């Protein structure tokens, strides 16, 4: 085979190979579940992200928390409102606050958390120092260690949006 053709073939193979995954030895991965809610005939299978595991940074026992990056707990009804929060348990934060039941759709091979008594929330203050990774394919949330540039390859210029 002519050397030029071989070189072209090797170059084509190299370009088509998928990039290697970025190694990330992250001790703090948390599995998340989707909250599913049916609201007046419309089913929202991705109504909210619920973390069933305890968050080690809080040092708490196992709780169910809604990831609330838009409101960080300040907009329980989904928009700025003077209406006091409904103390009823088992409700989501946000526009679907009025709806029950909230079904927790657990990832495959994950135990169901059972009846929902209380749904807390966590938001942006949790990530002031620790970058957040939301892996939708593997239903997991990663919290990178503070003040360490653990995986600089994540922030390649072509896929990063800056302020």
């Amino acid at each position, binding site marked *: 085979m002519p050397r030029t053709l071989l070189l072209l073939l090797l170059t084509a193979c190299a370009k088509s190979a998928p990039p290697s*995954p*970025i*190694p*990330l030895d992250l001790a703090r991965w948390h599995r998340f579940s989707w*909250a599913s*809610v049916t*609201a*007046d005939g*419309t089913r*929202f299978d*991705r*109504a*909210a*992200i619920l973390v069933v595991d305890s968050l080690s940074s809080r040092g708490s026992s196992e709780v169910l928390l*809604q*990831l*609330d*990056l*838009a*409101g*960080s707990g*300040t*907009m329980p*009804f*989904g*928009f*700025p*409102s003077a*209406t006091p929060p409904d103390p009823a348990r088992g409700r*989501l*934060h*946000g*526009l*679907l*606050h*009025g*709806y029950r039941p909230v079904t927790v759709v657990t990832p495959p091979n994950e135990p169901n958390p059972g009846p929902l008594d209380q749904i807390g929330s966590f938001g*942006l203050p949790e*990530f*002031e*120092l620790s*970058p*957040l*990774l*939301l*892996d*939708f*394919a*593997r239903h997991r949330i*990663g919290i990178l260690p503070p003040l360490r540039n653990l*995986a600089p390859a*994540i*922030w*390649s210029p*072509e*896929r*990063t*949006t*800056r*302020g």
Partner: protein
Amino acid sequence: MTYDSSRVRIPLLTGGARPLQVLFDTGLSPFPLWTTRQHWMRLTGRDGTEPDNRRHRLRHPAGALTFVGARFRQEIRVGGVSLGRLDVVFLEEGPAEARLEHWPFAVDGVLGPSAFGDGLIVAMDLRGPRMAILPAGSVR
């Protein structure tokens, strides 16, 4: 993206003259993209009265909410990453305080987690501030 100590806004490229500055949301709204009526009309090329628009009526402690939805005409992008053609809604009926135009801080919309699908990983660094969107499987 920008971060003002309580909110993350990301620029959505929609083919318009300027990007939409939307809140990055993970549960406040169940819709992929909630925006104002004015932006909705531009994004969908509709006026909101079409019979094939989707209508979502929600019971809510502050009063009933009616959202009107349709598919955006073209792809929406964050930086160089396409989120595809998203369903976009606006609030047609509801209390004034719920309307994005009346929120006490400026925002063009709310981008929900269902906009991202299962094929992506979102990384957010508030100290940057910066956000990266990676294909699934790119982080071990």
